[in-house]
Each structure stands twice: as C-alpha cells, then as structure tokens.
C-alpha cells in the first residue's frame, strides 16, 4: 500500500490517481495522519504543496522516522522536503516556473533512467535546491536542460526518490514512466 501525505495542494489528487495505476493508495492531510495506515504502507509519498519544507515539521519527522525502512518518494515540495531533511538549503529562485513545460535531462550514470535522455515535464515551483548539495547515498540525477537546476534526486541504496517537476501534470509527457520505474526499483 502507498501512503500519500497531502500538503493541502491542488494537484495532490492527480498524484493519487497516478499512483493508483500501480497499487492501492491512501491519502491523508499532513496534519491528519493515520498512524496505523502509515505504518502498514510500503511506500510513503510526500505531495506537492504551497510554502517551504520548514512549514511542515510533521512531514520532516515522518521522513526521519521511516528513512531506509520504507521507500520514500517526494514530488515538488515533497522533493524539497527530503532535501531539507538531508540538510539541503531550499531557496527562492529568480525565474519562477508555474504551469511551465520545460526540458530536463538525465545527467547521471547511476540513475534508473538512461543518461542524456531528455523529457518534457510540467513545473510548478517557486523554490529550488541551493547547490552544492551533498548527502550520503544521494545523487542529483536530472537537471533542467537550460538552467541546470536540480530536477531529480535518487538514493538507490535506501530507496529514496524525488522529483522537482510534476510527473502527474498533463504537461509531463510519459509521466507514468517515472513512477513505474521508481516503484519497481
């Protein structure tokens, strides 16, 4: 079972429907967590949402508790939430991407996706990861083809994955592919 933590976003139920292609899904608000279901799940997903990771301490403590015990996936704010817990700095960016389709590129040999492959994806983010960023077992595996901003992280050892873009957006081509690959990893 996949447990999706909703940060009260207006895209979360697209994420729910996308994951439902692959497994049973439960989705609760970040401040109404069902501990029982959370414990029973195999995968935890942190949804997109407004604001910054520091606004969601409950989500941070869930991440820390289940890291390396369950597969963890973060999307947009959820991606930043993971980075924030790994001591990454999340900062405002000059050019803001809301409702924007852009090209991203796989930049790592260690990715589940083929190096140099390009994707058209939908983006909705005000904030970004400040670099350089390093954390044990984590690697930035995709970047914006133009600005080089970090677009995906993978930790294949502890099974932690995050996307800054929105695989569930209608602006993302082959969005299901991203989810399918990391769920079967």
């Amino acid at each position: 079972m996949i447990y999706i933590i909703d940060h009260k976003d207006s895209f979360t139920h697209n994420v729910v429907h996308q994951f439902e292609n692959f497994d049973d899904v439960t989705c609760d608000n970040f401040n109404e967590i069902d501990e029982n279901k959370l414990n029973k799940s195999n995968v935890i997903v942190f949804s997109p949402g407004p604001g910054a990771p520091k606004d969601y301490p409950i989500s941070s403590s869930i991440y820390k508790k289940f890291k390396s015990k369950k597969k963890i996936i973060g999307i947009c704010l959820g991606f930043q939430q993971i980075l924030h817990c790994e001591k990454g700095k999340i900062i405002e960016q000059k050019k803001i991407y809301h409702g924007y389709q852009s090209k991203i590129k796989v930049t790592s040999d260690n990715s589940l996706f083929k190096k140099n492959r390009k994707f058209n994806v939908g983006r909705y983010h005000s904030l970004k990861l400040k670099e350089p960023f390093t954390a044990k077992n984590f690697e930035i595996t995709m970047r914006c083809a133009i600005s080089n901003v970090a677009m995906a992280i993978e930790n294949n050892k502890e099974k932690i994955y995050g996307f800054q873009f929105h695989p569930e957006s209608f602006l993302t081509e082959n969005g299901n592919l991203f989810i399918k690959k990391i769920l079967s990893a």
Partner: protein
Amino acid sequence: MIKKNYLEDLNNAKKPFIIYKSNKGFDLYTDFSKKIILTNNNVEKFINESTKLKSKNKETDLFIGFFGYEILNNLIGVKVKKQKGLKFPKGIFYKPESKLKLPNKLNYKNLRIVKSSKLFKININKASYKVIFDKFKKKIKSGETYQIKICTKYSNKAHIDALDFFSRLVKSNMAPEAFMIKDKDYSIISCSPENLIIKEKDLITTKPIAGTLKKTKKLNKIKALAFFRKNIKENKEHNMIVDMERSDLSKICKAGSVKILKKKIVEEYKDLYHYVSLIGGRLKNNISSLDIIKAMMPGGSVIGCPKISTLNLLNNQEKENRNVYTGSFGYIKSNGNMRFNIIIRSILNYKNKSEISVASGVVIDSNAQHEFNENYIKAKALMDLYK
C-alpha cells in the same frame, strides 16, 4: 406557447422568478413552493436532503439557487473573518412548481427609468491595489500561492428593474451560464460564461476559462488561438487551472477516468474570445452531492492555485464580503443531476444597493496597472447598464 406580455405580467405581479440560460434559449422557473435561506448550520443538511424530493414532476423536481462565497469556504473548512458588507444571505435555494421555456430574445421593455447614483464607488483604489498586488507577488516568490485573483468591488445606490437589466445584458453579452434571480428584496443579474459542474448520472464535467481576448476587426478564431498559444503568461495560467481542475475531479472520480476532453480551445462570444478547456470524469460509487460540491467549489479558476492556501491569503486580505461573487448558481435535481456555474460578471442588488465585483489574476509576470485596468473593463460592461 407563452403569452406575448408574459414577462411583463410576471414582473409586475412582483412574484419571485429565476431565468437560466438553456441550450436554445432560457428556462424560467417560478411559483416557488419553498425558499431555503442557507446558513453555515443548515447548508450540509440542505444539500443532503435536496435529492430526497418525492418525484411528482420531472421538470420541476429540483432546487435552484445559489451558494455565496463565504458558505463555500465554510463547507471546505476555510475560515472567513468577520467582514463588512450588505448582510446579504449566504445562500438561497427555491423549489419551483412551474418551468417555462423562453426564446433567446427576451421580449421585455421597461418603461420606468432606472433610479441610481451614476457614480460607482470602488473599494480599493489604484494605490491600495498596487500594495496588495506587491504583497501577493512576494507570496508567489515564496511559494505560498502560484496564482491569486484580487477582487475589487464597485458599488452604488440604485433602484433597478432587474428584468430590464438582464434583457439588455444578454442582448449585448449573451453567455452560456447567464442567469437572473428576482425576489422581493434582492436581485442578481449575471452573464457568467463559466460552467463549473455538469453532472449527469455518473458523468461529471467542468469547463474552466483562463484567458480572455477582446475582439477586434483583425481577429478571428484561428488568430485568437495563435495569440493564446504564443502568450506564455496566458498559457501558464491556463495550465495551472487545468491541472487544478483535474485534481479536484480526481477527488470524486474513478482512478484513470479523469480526462481532458477539450484541451485549450478558443470559444467565440459576441465581444470576446475565451481560452477554455473541458475536463471530465466518471464518479466513484457512493459519491454524494455534498462530496461533489465540496470537491469542486469554490471554482478554482476564479480563486487561484493552490486553492486552500490561496483562499486563506485572500480571506486575510479582504475587508469586505464577496457575497455572491465567485460563489455558484445552479440547480440540484432530485435524481442527483446538477448544473452549477461560477458567479462572475454579476450585479447584486439588495435593499437598493448595487454591487459589481471583478477580479483578475496575479501570476509572477503580471503587471499591477494592467490588471487594475482589466478589472475596470470587466466592471464597465455592467456599469453601463445604469446609464
């Protein structure tokens, strides 16, 4: 066939009635046997019981009316602080016993003169608008909202003949969701172009508008589409709304059933082009009318995105009650089918005071001066009716 002077007689009889745009003309509802004034306490009960009518007449087995903005916030647990305003009811629904079909050309001529102060007062002047605008832009930079609609309100004192206003309005600005309500102490007149919910059996659709272009002689539908496609700002706003409406529908629809049925097309109206999408899905089993209303209202395209956090920002900012503006008008049939619009481009006249609210969107690349003027243009079409 209806009598030639039917509308005039109805209006003169001072009986409450409602007119709502249909496919070919208008539907007129009257002879109300029930009138329910909604409060935060009775709204859920009303929605749950609206489909429990005992069927007598298929055509009139429905409740028709409106939900105001505040009650829709309340339904989804978003607080609205105490605000100034007309103290107008939060929502009213009627059970009609008669329904009549009217043609597109409403045969009504008013002989009385509109009594009104010609000057409309605006609640937020250009300077204060700029302050709010800049504040919200900061909220976009920090990620609290991605798009937010600032509402401004024009008001005056007026005694109006609502039917006269409505027949003139639809002559110049026919819109697929146009409606009017006339009751003893208030009237609402609207040329809303935007449908929020059409629900028939297990099929539900929503048709958001994001993007408006004024017609000129040089433009045609194909050129309008090219304009929208090329305009990055309009496209981004529209994309955001499409993903938001997909998500709202996904709350109540079967997984995999939510589809964009018409993606970013142009619709032509008398004076303008709209950039619209049509999104639909199949409802999950056991979804109630209340579930549907809570998932879809208030309609996202007139609020901004993400909905909850943006509503909170708006509600902390706005000192005056929106009343019906950005609420929804429509009906719930006893068989559970529904049709609801988003109340925009509307006049509320209550106790001889008129108000016209308008809003336009702030995204990261909007310009305050432009959006302020845009608001004025939207209001002007309605204020011109008072001349």
